[in-house]
């Protein structure tokens, strides 16, 4: 739970480093190769969003657990934080965002679809924090 590791994102190398960290951790946790690719894609989209629109920020990854009927379920939590311009209309982005439409936050609906839990908090000119979790099945 305390094993949060963060990667700074300020250029494309940061994106690749965040992807690498995500792929390793998800493999460690026990995700299959398709889910590893999905988690990595989600991280990639979030990191690219930071790089393109906030210039810099960080991606933190965490092994998380929640109790289920028999024991614990493991998962991976991605936290993407920046102090960029913020997303003016979250409703708009989440409803109208198309994979290929481009623009700030365009990848967010895709991230939501790839992960199990998704939350976003954005304040104008204070930045954006996206939290997304995928649980091991």
């Amino acid at each position, binding site marked *: 739970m305390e094993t949060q590791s963060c990667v700074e994102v300020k250029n494309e190398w940061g994106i690749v480093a965040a992807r690498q960290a995500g792929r390793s951790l998800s493999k460690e946790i026990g995700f299959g190769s398709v889910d590893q690719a999905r988690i990595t894609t989600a991280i990639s989209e979030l990191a690219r969003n930071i790089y393109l629109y906030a210039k810099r920020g960080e991606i933190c990854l965490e092994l998380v657990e929640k109790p289920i009927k028999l024991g614990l379920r493991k998962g991976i939590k991605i936290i993407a934080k920046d102090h960029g311009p913020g997303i003016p209309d979250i409703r708009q982005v989440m409803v109208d965002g198309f994979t290929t439409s481009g623009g700030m936050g365009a990848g967010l609906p895709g991230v939501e679809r790839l992960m199990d839990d998704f939350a976003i908090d954005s304040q104008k000119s204070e930045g954006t924090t996206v939290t997304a979790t995928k649980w091991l*099945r």
Partner: protein
Amino acid sequence: MEQAVQHLEITYKEIVKTFLHRKSELGLYEAQQFSKVLLEHQISPEELVSVHRAVLEELFPAVPEEVIDSFDLLLEVMMGYGLAYREHQSLRDRQLKLESEIDVAADMQQTLLPKAIPETDCLDIGVISVPAYKMSGDYYHYIKDEQGCVGIAIADIIGKGVPAALCMSMIKYAMDSLPEQPLQPAALLENVNRVVEQNVHDSMFITMMYGSYNTINHEFHYSGAGHEPGFLYRAAEDQFKELCAKGIVLGVSKKPQYREYSKKIEVGDFIVFLSDGVTECQVGDRFIEREEIVTFIRKYMHLSAQELADNVYRELASLQKFTLRDDFTLIIIKRV
């Protein structure tokens, strides 16, 4: 889900084995059917790539590692399509919801149109009104008063779809709120213009034509607000005349003056009101001419007014392969 994928892997392995063994079209047909099963189970395409790799590894243990590794890359590229596929699913859900909303609204809109054609001894009236899409921006209405006059209104909102439909409902309420006593065509248009001018968005314009048929002296008085001209068929001369009525479209001017025209209608004559969706029918690269409409009307004019309208619609719709580009309204008023 994991189980479903495992099960699919076994099925896919069998399909691959049979196909590689016989290389027959049957195997490819099975593959296509399998593809439908995947879509039904909402399996993403990246999942399929992963299954394919696993099957290859099992069937050909000697395959170079690099070939197997290349699937990591294919899978990664396929993720983009996987996202598009997921987006497709949610878009479809949203679209289905929107479409069913529009279905209900279109249904409501139908209730705004008159339910019955006014009955008189001397008139045979037929009407057909078909929206280009589900909701219509065309409107028509009948008013029958105690003095033996039958009023016929046709209106076309410039624009289509939902905004036009919203606007069309306003015309209906504008007509409903008219004073109780019958109005002459010009006065009626002036009244409706006032409501439209006050309530309608600046980007919306409405064309309208209103005619009042006096069933006692068979005079037909009419006025128009920028609307597509109709036709008047003269039985004695066996000729079609244009039924023009000049006037500014509704909603533009605060106090427009509409001119009133009148014609004496004889037995066997008939009046045609239409919206520009009838005349601006596109066939291939060209628009149909008003003369061609007349040809179609002539072809069916021996029938009742309703049959005449229905048949002209059928002909024009079929020419356009049932894809109307504009709302289509055609009213036939025959003196019998």
